[in-house]
């Protein structure tokens, strides 16, 4: 951490950011973090006085989607300064240096700021084939992760791949990919910002929280910040009234779809996914998947590729009957088999006992019921 408390003011001035824009940014951050009013009021002052964190950004088995998300952080004037102007000492996609020079920059940061810098990790860590599936500068991803995250003050896993393994770790996981917390169990303060990709606003808000409060926010069972993962998508969704009313989209482009009905029957996983998409939204707060008519696929949850698919169905299939099998059809089939078997058994036994009665008591037919 660089002990220069004037850097933000300088940067803001240099970029021609007005005080008004800065306050607006602080306001939106306070809203994402759900800070109480008194704390929100102190945020601009605290942020202006905050020290500048050193950041290294590692990419492993990924699609650079989180980098894309990060570069498109909105309210660019201020967020750019927070994000771009934090000392990003190493970021393969955006750094000018390449090859040996780049690797040297990383080594230098790790050596110089050991225990102080933040490691942001994007992508899963493949452990198969001795790490051959992902190696940078001849070093396996696992070794890099161990070294860089092991010496960091905190590791922020951005995106579902780094947080939980994501796509690379989906069945059948050919590269034996694992999440960053599995790869470096000893890493201090691992924070998972899952979702595919992680929302830039949540990355920014997390950094702002850290810079101003000098600690990390409360986390849930999956080590995700509660401010962003404390609520179900379903509980913040603007289509929720249609859900409660029983008005659902039945087919793509039908009347209900055009009227903005609930996407539950199209396989929406909002009811089982915790994230703040409906509130923070995407692309400069323009919209979010359900808002534009697509069901949530549950990208912020562990193993979502395996667990949430088929994405357009309410439930997964039945083991032995395939992923696409309808659980109710299998259930009805099983019920029919059980019914047939027990009814048949009963009829056969009844017929046999009748015959027996007839043998032992020939006069049975004349007997009267009392």
């Amino acid at each position, binding site marked *: 951490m660089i002990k220069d408390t004037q850097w933000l003011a300088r940067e803001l001035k240099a970029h021609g950011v007005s005080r008004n824009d800065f306050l607006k940014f602080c306001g939106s951050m306070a809203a994402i973090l759900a800070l109480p009013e008194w704390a929100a009021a102190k945020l601009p002052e605290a942020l202006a006085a905050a020290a500048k964190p050193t950041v290294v950004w590692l990419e492993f088995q990924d699609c650079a989607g989180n980098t894309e998300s990060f570069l498109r952080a909105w309210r660019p004037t201020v967020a750019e300064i927070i994000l771009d102007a934090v000392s990003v000492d190493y970021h393969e996609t955006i750094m000018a240096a390449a090859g040996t020079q780049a690797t040297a920059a990383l080594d230098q940061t790790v050596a110089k700021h050991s225990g102080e810098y933040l490691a942001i990790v994007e992508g899963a860590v493949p452990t198969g084939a001795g790490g051959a599936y992902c190696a940078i500068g001849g070093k396996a991803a696992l070794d890099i992760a161990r070294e860089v995250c092991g010496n960091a003050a905190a590791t922020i896993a951005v995106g579902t791949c780094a947080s939980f393994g994501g796509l690379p770790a989906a069945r059948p996981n050919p590269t034996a990919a694992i999440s960053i917390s599995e790869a470096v169990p000893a890493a201090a303060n691992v924070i998972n910002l899952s979702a595919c990709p992680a929302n830039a606003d949540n990355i920014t808000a997390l950094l702002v929280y850290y810079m101003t409060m000098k600690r990390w926010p409360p986390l849930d*069972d999956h080590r995700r910040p509660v401010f962003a993962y404390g609520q*179900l998508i379903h*509980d913040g969704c603007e289509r929720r009234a249609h*859900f*409660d*009313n*029983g*008005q*659902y989209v039945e087919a793509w482009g039908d*009347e209900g779809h055009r*009227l903005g009905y609930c996407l*539950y*029957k199209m396989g929406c*996983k909002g009811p*089982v*996914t915790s994230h703040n998409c409906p509130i923070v939204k995407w692309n400069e707060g323009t919209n979010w998947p359900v808002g534009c008519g697509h069901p949530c696929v*549950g990208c912020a*949850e*562990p*193993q979502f590729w395996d*667990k*949430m698919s088929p994405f357009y169905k*309410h*439930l*997964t299939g*039945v083991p032995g009957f395939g992923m696409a099998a309808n*659980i*109710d059809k*299998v*259930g009805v089939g*099983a*019920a029919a088999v*059980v*019914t047939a078997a*027990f*009814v048949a*058994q*009963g009829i*056969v*036994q*009844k017929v*046999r*006992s009748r015959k*027996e*009665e007839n043998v*032992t*008591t020939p*006069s*049975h037919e004349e*007997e009267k*019921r*009392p």
Partner: protein
Amino acid sequence: MSAENAVRAPVAGEAVRVPVYVWDIWVRVIHWAVFFCFIILAITGSYISHPFIPVARDAYEPFLMGTVRVVHFYTAMVFDLAVFARIVLMFVGSPYARWDQFIPVTKRRWNSALESLKFYVFLRRTPPEAIGHDALDGLIFAARFLVDLLIIATGFALYSKITSYSSPLAIFQGLIPYFGGLQSVRWLHHMLMWVAILFILQHVIRVIVLSTVKHDGTVESMLSGYRYVTKEDLAEEARDR
């Protein structure tokens, strides 16, 4: 239901049967509470997983899903209480409601379960006599209790996420990771409904078959409480105790 209607007179060579009060009022009330709750839960649950009733665009505050969910939740609470009450009866209830009716502890009951199984694979003409639960039936019910407890656990896990954060039921969120995440809980809860339906089907059919093969009034016994038992069996039971 009178004794006369429940059983017909024994034919020659068949044992004489006497009525025994096996199911006390608690067992019967819980039996039917569980049954009717389950029917309501299965119907409302099916609607919740696959809403099959169309709601018109201009319907005035239909709140259909909301209502069905509330009915499901309240019925579930009655169901849970009934199941727990039945488990309590296993320890404080009548001898025919005790836990050892479900889990065989004596050699005689294990043999009886085996004999009962023979009836289902046609190695016996009639199932062995039993005053309370048939030994095999008891074992099947023990499994059914486990299914019910799993249904209840998955139900609470699902409910824990939609209840308010201050609700004491929110602690059941702790169960979610053990079931492999919320979507898996959902799947399990739904799948277990089908397992419970299979239990009910085999139970109903088997009870009717037993009643007609043995003429012991098993079907009516869940209303009257009386079951018709052979004198020999009653004597043997008395010796055992």
